[in-house]
Each structure stands twice: as structure tokens, then as C-alpha cells.
């Protein structure tokens, strides 16, 4: 067993007994990256020299007996829409190809305080717009389980790098499913926290009312470790919630007796593949065996979530992405004589097709004469979708269903029609609209590709999600399966 297959708690034990050094862990990490990343193509930027220096510094701290952070010595990969001071941050866009942030995102600052090592920056769909990583402005990332398949998106490389054993864990961001869908496709654990639990300061904004940063890991316990390090109020993000952060690791009681599970019929209906349904039904049986009960319920407005999401997220994106104007940072086109032309040329040369399409849709939905019909209408439907969840959580502890309607698909098979690609996110999007937390955990395979089980919780009740996910993980061995690379 490679040291990279171990859990954080196991690695910490080995560091404590001096059987392992931080340098050993970092060396093993880069060995693995150099061995497999040519196939997986998860990284856009590697931070190798710094990582090795930081490892030495942490090893000295280990010897001196100084206080150690919660994630001491643990290598991490960070999605490239989270700013890292002095480390190139591109959002996988040509418009930011040479952008070097002058500050750290709050989550990065907190990780530094927790003594992690930022190994590198991870590929994604450009500005987090996409479900396959094929919208990267640089190159696509491949699924470690089948290199001819997509890893999902937009945090595709956050999931692929963890699945391939290149990093112990990573950070992703989730606006409509961008952590959970790739976690499902790559057979790893991915959590979208409650909106407001994790600071968005330094996350390059896509849709501000939906975006959340979250952890991607190989097991549920590590996921809780990582969330513990990054959660909590931040004065730099005015939408960050002022709530007490519980001890997430204390949620692993293994006890789900009496747990009330709601299973929305819309999540096992038309469009969801048989192989996916079977795995979810098996998972429900396992939880039943552990003492939980489940009932079928309805989220009647979930079928409107996709349209609502595309109107709202594109509208917010069109405003957020107006900052890329070629003036203060980013690409500036040389092919223009006046200011307006410079804006237009820089943006058109720098942004990819999907990003432009969504800016166009959002600008249209917000434009005079259409605002009420599209944007405001979508905001109202968002209220109905949110109420669906509130109603169910009055009677049930968690909602369970599949993360995605199908397993991963072949590269290039969905790029022609934007609407078909959007269908990937029908089971994850309602969660973002309601602002509730949800995790995807591996629950088996369909035709050799991983399937994800989605567990949705109440606002700020990540502890219950972790308790259920952990109990399920303990009762199965899906999380120990690894791709052959």
C-alpha cells in the first residue's frame, strides 16, 4: 500500500512516530504526479520547488515539537479558480493565462495555517462553466477509470487528481454540481457545503448566490478534516454566515438508527439510467439494514431547476465576468484603436465559446424589457424550489438519491449541443438553488465506471450528512477501489 493511499489520521500517526517525514509524503506525491499526470492531465501549474522547501520547514517543525496545524504536512491540489498568492491562477481561461494573484483566498490562508502544502493548481472548465472539463481553455482532463471518458466538471481535475492518487485531497467549487458530479464520475467523495459556510473571498466569482468551495477526498473522514479547516465566518465575505462550527469528526458515530430518509421520486424517474438506480436502491437497503427508514417523497418543482439555474447563474456570470476588460489584469488585445474596441477584442480573444454563450444569455436575461420575464421569473421559481426542500426537511433528516443520471461519458460525445450537456446537472442543481449542503460518495459501478450516491442535508447540518456517509462507507468497500493507471 502506497503512503498516498492512507488517511490523514493514519499519516499523522506515522509522522508522529517518525516512521515517515513530510518530505517523504511530498516526494511520493510528485513521483506519482510525474508518473500518471501525462495521462490524466489534471494539473495546470505545479508548485514543486516551493512544496519541497515547505516540506523541509514542516519536518523541522516536527523535530522541534512546535504546534502542528490540523492538516499538518498534507499535500493538497487547488482548483484554479481559487486565488493563490504568487502562484499562477487561470480559471482555465486564456484571458488569465499569465495572471499571478497578489493575495491568497481565505480558504488558502486557512489551509496555510493548517500546515498543508499547495502542490499545484488544478484544471477545470473555463470559469467553472461546464460538466466535462472539455471547456478548459488549455486541455481537457481525463477520467482515471477510463482515459477516453470525461472526469466530469467543472471541478473535474479536482476529482481526477484525487482518484488517480496524485494528491491526498483537493479543493473544488460547486455552483450547480461542480464538486459532486465529478466526484461521482471519478469515484471519490465530494461535498458542497451549505451556502455561506465557507468563505468565497478569493474564489473567482461565477454565480455569487450559488458558488461554494468544498473538499474532494478519498474518504469521508478526510473530507470532514478538510471542511473543518476551511469552514467559518470571514469578514472579507459579506455573504459568509455567522454560525458556530461543530466538530465534524465527532459526527462519526456509525449510528443511523431511526434516521428518516426521503427519496424523491423525481430522482429515480425518467432519464436516470438503470445501472444508477440499482446502485442507489442497494445503498438504501444497506442504510435500512443499519436501522434507517426511507420513504418516497416528491420535489415537485425540481423539473424547473435546470431552466431556473441557467437563467440565474448566467445572469450573475454576465455581471461578474465584466471585470475582465483587459485594463487591470489579464489578456489585452493589441488589435484595437479605442477603448470600447479594446474591451470587445480582449474579451472575445480571451473567453472560450461556452463562457461567451453564457455571458450572452445572462446579458439578454438582464436586459431592458426581458428582466421581469426571465431573471425575475427565475428568482421566483427559485423560491418554490427552495420551499420544496424546506417542506421535506420538516419530516426527514436527509434526502438521498443519485448524484448524476448516468455514469461518465466518452470525451467529445456531448459537446455539440449545450442543452444535452446541461442535463448532467439536473440532480445537483436544485441543491445549489436551495443553498443546502450535499455530498457525493461512491456507491458502486455501472459498466466499470463509478456511480455516486448523493446525500442532501438541512442548512448547516453537514454533521448529519457526514454521519450517514460514514456509516454507509463503513458498511461497504467502494471507497477502497482504485483505478488502474
Amino acid at each position, binding site marked *: 500500500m502506497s503512503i498516498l493511499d492512507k488517511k490523514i489520521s493514519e499519516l499523522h500517526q506515522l509522522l508522529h512516530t517518525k516512521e515517515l517525514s513530510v518530505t517523504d509524503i511530498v516526494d511520493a506525491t510528485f513521483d506519482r504526479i510525474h508518473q500518471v499526470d501525462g495521462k490524466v492531465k489534471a494539473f495546470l501549474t505545479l508548485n514543486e520547488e516551493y512544496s519541497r522547501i515547505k516540506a523541509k520547514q514542516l519536518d523541522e517543525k516536527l523535530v522541534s515539537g512546535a504546534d502542528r496545524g490540523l492538516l499538518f504536512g498534507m499535500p493538497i491540489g487547488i482548483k484554479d479558480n481559487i486565488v493563490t498568492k504568487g502562484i499562477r491562477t487561470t480559471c482555465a481561461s486564456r484571458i488569465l493565462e499569465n495572471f499571478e494573484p497578489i493575495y491568497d483566498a481565505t480558504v488558502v490562508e486557512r489551509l496555510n495555517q493548517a500546515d498543508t502544502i499547495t502542490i499545484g493548481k488544478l484544471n477545470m472548465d473555463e470559469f467553472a462553466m461546464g460538466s466535462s472539463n472539455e471547456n478548459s481553455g488549455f486541455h481537457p482532463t481525463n477520467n482515471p477509470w477510463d482515459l477516453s471518458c470525461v472526469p466530469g466538471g467543472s471541478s473535474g481535475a479536482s476529482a481526477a487528481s484525487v482518484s488517480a492518487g496524485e494528491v491526498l485531497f483537493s479543493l473544488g467549487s460547486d455552483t450547480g454540481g461542480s464538486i459532486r458530479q465529478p466526484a461521482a464520475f471519478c469515484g471519490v467523495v465530494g461535498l458542497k457545503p451549505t451556502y455561506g459556510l465557507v468563505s468565497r473571498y478569493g474564489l473567482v466569482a461565477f454565480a455569487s*448566490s450559488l458558488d461554494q468551495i468544498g473538499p474532494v477526498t478519498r474518504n469521508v473522514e478526510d473530507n470532514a478534516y478538510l471542511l473543518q479547516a476551511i469552514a467559518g465566518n470571514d469578514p472579507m465575505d459579506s455573504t459568509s454566515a455567522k454560525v458556530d462550527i461543530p466538530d465534524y469528526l465527532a459526527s462519526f458515530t456509525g449510528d443511523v438508527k431511526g434516521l428518516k430518509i426521503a427519496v424523491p421520486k423525481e430522482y429515480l424517474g425518467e432519464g436516470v439510467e438503470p445501472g444508477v438506480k440499482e446502485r442507489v436502491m442497494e445503498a438504501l437497503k444497506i442504510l435500512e439494514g443499519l436501522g434507517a427508514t426511507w420513504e418516497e417523497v416528491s420535489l415537485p*418543482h425540481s423539473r424547473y431547476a*435546470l431552466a431556473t439555474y441557467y437563467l440565474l447563474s448566467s445572469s450573475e456570470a454576465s455581471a461578474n465576468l465584466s471585470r475582465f476588460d483587459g*485594463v487591470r489584469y489579464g489578456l489585452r488585445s493589441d488589435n484595437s484603436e479605442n*477603448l470600447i474596441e479594446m474591451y470587445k477584442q480582449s474579451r472575445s480573444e480571451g473567453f472560450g465559446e461556452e463562457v461567451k454563450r453564457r455571458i*450572452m*444569455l445572462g446579458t439578454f436575461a438582464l436586459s431592458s424589457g426581458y428582466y421581469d420575464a426571465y431573471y425575475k*421569473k427565475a428568482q421566483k421559481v427559485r423560491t418554490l424550489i427552495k420551499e420544496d426542500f424546506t417542506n421535506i426537511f420538516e419530516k426527514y433528516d436527509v434526502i438521498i438519491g443519485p448524484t448524476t443520471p448516468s455514469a461518465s461519458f466518452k470525451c467529445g460525445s456531448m459537446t455539440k449541443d*449545450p442543452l444535452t450537456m446541461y442535463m448532467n446537472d439536473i440532480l445537483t442543481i436544485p441543491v445549489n438553488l436551495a443553498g443546502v449542503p450535499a455530498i457525493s460518495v461512491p456507491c458502486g459501478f455501472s459498466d466499470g465506471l463509478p456511480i455516486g450516491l448523493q446525500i442532501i442535508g438541512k442548512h448547516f447540518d453537514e454533521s448529519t450528512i457526514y454521519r450517514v456517509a460514514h456509516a454507509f462507507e463503513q458498511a461497504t468497500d467502494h471507497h477502497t477501489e482504485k483505478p488502474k493507471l
Partner: protein
Amino acid sequence: MSRISKDQVKHVAHLARLAVTEEEAELLTEQLDKIIGFAEELNELDTDNVEPTTHVLELKNILRKDEVRNSVSVDEAMKNAPSERDGQFKVPNILE
């Protein structure tokens, strides 16, 4: 009937500060029409008495004391500037 015309697409592109070729405008007209058509399924729902959700959590204005704090230096702020002169961002002509 199409929901968006090519002229509208060109106008929206101008508002969004995007340069589009004739070809791109045509393709975008077709694609946006399809997406907007799909979005119109929301009209099946009666939302006359529904309040819009702008934010999922109940938040009021967040205020802080107006105190002087450190900010970035001019040198740092200029670090990523595509074009710069004397510590200022340089842009093409604004006035003819």
C-alpha cells in the same frame, strides 16, 4: 416564431462587450433561441404571489467600522497590468 433575432444578438453582444462575427451571431441566435425556449417552461408556473429569492440565507446589510486599514501598494496593484505608465493603468484613447 424565433424568440431572439440576429439583430438582437448583435445588440446583446455589444452590451456584453463581445465582438461577434456574422457567423458567430448566426450560431448564437440559433443556440440562444433554443436555450430561451427551454427556459420558457417556467411560464407553466403561476408565480404571481411568490416572492423572488435573491439570497438563500436571511441576511441583512453587513456593516463594518469605517477604519483605515492596510491596502495593496501601487506596485502590487500594477503587477498584472497589461500596460502601465507612472503607476497608472494605461488604456487606448477614450476621447477622439
